[in-house]
């Protein structure tokens, strides 16, 4: 187990290193000079040079990358003239557009994205697995057919379409819910949940479809397996077979998928956050892309890559704990 974790950590680091190098190389060719943007509309050459120096843009690419890595481990100072901007480790860079360390910016936005994803995750698990079980236990029934149809419609409804529809229904016509903003959990838990309900539903319903289908097929497959037949041959009641044995096996792939899904936090929330104007990581990224705030883009991309790699490891671990046959190697 320890050996596995160590190996996984090393692998994760290797992947992240590679990822960061790719990201760095890609964004180096961005149009526009970030220094120019910082400098303002009318910029004099020596001002530009000073900013170049400060950002380290006058160094060759590989050297900039090394500095980036160094900052990640040990922190880094951006200095010129009489003052120094310190960016403490782990320093993902310094956003000169907003004049803040990228790490801080990301951490600022993280609670929003986490609130969104985790809340939605609970919903999509409950809805997805619940409907999947209903479908899988009575294949071909009216409920199963109805759910299949709903799931199909769900697959065909992108988040931005669903979000708009939900807003129109709940916010405009029924006026049951407040327009979504973001209230920190620590400030007012009720308002937090109320405000996030629509974004949660939007994200959850589109994802729940996947879980529902997976639960249904897995359940059907497991119910057709030999060990279920053994239980039946030994007079074990159907309720117990499903509740104790089939469910256990059904949840295993669900848990694994869940680990993978949670890792894709950032990627999956860009659209939802943009749609609802939630100030999360996805919104930060879109804004950063539009203002060519490269350090933020690099940082956010790395963070989401990191989340995915961690999610993969998490999925493996969960799988290991859920299924005694799986050995971590």
């Amino acid at each position, binding site marked *: 187990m320890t050996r596995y974790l160590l190996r996984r950590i090393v692998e994760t680091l290797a992947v992240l290193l*590679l990822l960061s190098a790719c990201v760095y190389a890609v964004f180096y060719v*961005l149009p526009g000079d970030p220094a120019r943007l910082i400098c303002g509309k009318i910029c004099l050459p020596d001002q530009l040079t000073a900013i170049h120096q400060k950002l380290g843009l006058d160094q060759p690419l590989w050297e900039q990358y090394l500095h980036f890595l160094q900052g990640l481990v040990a922190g880094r100072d951006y200095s010129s003239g009489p003052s120094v901007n310190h960016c403490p480790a782990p320093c993902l860079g310094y956003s000169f557009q907003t004049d803040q360390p990228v790490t801080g910016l990301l951490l600022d936005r993280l609670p929003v994205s986490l609130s969104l994803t985790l809340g939605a995750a609970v919903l999509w698990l409950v809805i997805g697995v619940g409907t999947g079980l209903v479908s899988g236990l009575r294949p071909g029934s009216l409920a199963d057919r109805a759910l299949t149809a709903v799931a199909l419609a769900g697959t065909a409804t992108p988040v931005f379409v669903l979000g708009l529809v939900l807003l129109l229904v709940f916010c405009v016509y029924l006026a049951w819910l407040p327009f979504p903003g973001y209230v920190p959990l620590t400030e007012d838990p009720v308002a937090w949940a109320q405000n996030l309900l629509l974004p949660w539903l939007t994200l959850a319903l589109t994802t729940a479809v996947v879980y529902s289908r997976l639960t249904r097929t897995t359940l059907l497959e497991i119910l057709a397996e030999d060990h279920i037949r053994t239980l039946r041959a030994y007079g074990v009641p159907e309720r117990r077979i499903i509740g104790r044995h089939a469910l256990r096996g059904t949840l295993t792939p669900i848990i694994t998928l869940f680990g993978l899904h949670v890792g894709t936090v950032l990627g999956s929330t860009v659209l939802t956050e943009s749609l609802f104007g939630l100030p999360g990581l996805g919104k930060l990224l879109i804004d950063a892309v539009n203002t060519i705030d490269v350090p933020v883009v690099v940082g956010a991309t790395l963070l989401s890559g990191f989340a995915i790699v961690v999610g993969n490891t998490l999925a493996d671990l969960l799988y290991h704990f859920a299924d005694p046959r799986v050995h971590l190697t």
Partner: protein
Amino acid sequence: MRHYRVGLAIVAALVLIALTAPLLTALEGQDATGFHPELVNSALGGLPNGALGGISADHWLGVEPGTGRDIFARIVYGAQVSLGVAIGATVVQVLIGTTVGLAAGMGGRLADGLLTRGIDLMMALPELIFAIALLVIVPAGFPRPLLLAGVIGVFGWGGTARLVRAQTLSLRTRDYVAAARLAGAGRVRVARREILPGVVAPVLTYAALLLPGNIVSEAGLSFLGIGVRPPTPSWGQMLSNASVWFRSDPMYVIIPAAAIFLAVLAFTLLGDGVRKAANPRTTGAAS
């Protein structure tokens, strides 16, 4: 199977609409880029005159707020972009995925190891984020639909590659491959005659399932404002523009939303049909 037929019918209709867009708009007597200031109320921010977003005999689906452009024409031309980009992206995904997967599956241990890691890395990339970033990097003058298809394709071939690799590895151990080797067939001949035919069917099935996802990707990127450039119409872009008009002009939202929904639904049904036809064993009881 009858769902599959419904899907096929809608897909066929959409393709026909996309192909005959100029004809259809000519039939309506409008075009996709013409402004009609007389059809909107400038004092109300450009709200279309008349009920239901200005639907009339001349403008079958109403007009855009602000510009007064014909929505029907923009929807049918938008179909070209939506389907074109999605199909193009799928082709890119299948080509790259099959090549990489086949190379990994047929290659030696080293090649396989490297390529597999590459595929894993590819799958670990936050696709949407990279697509967003790349769309910003490429100069604005580059033909946008091509770029979109390329970007969606380039970040979405991991699944295909994995599938092809797994299939190749599985086929490689089949006795008939051993028999072919004993019969004197070289690696290339084995790959071409024995492996590839076995890979094509699952890949095509998979591609059919990739397509609706690619439609959503294109719409999503356009929705984020980094898709095709105006005045080229695209459904996602229309929806994005429409989203602020939700209350005052709901038809403007409903029409592109319905178009996206219908297209994704149809391609999903078709993909499901293809999958079930190719692999009847997994047919669900409810279908």
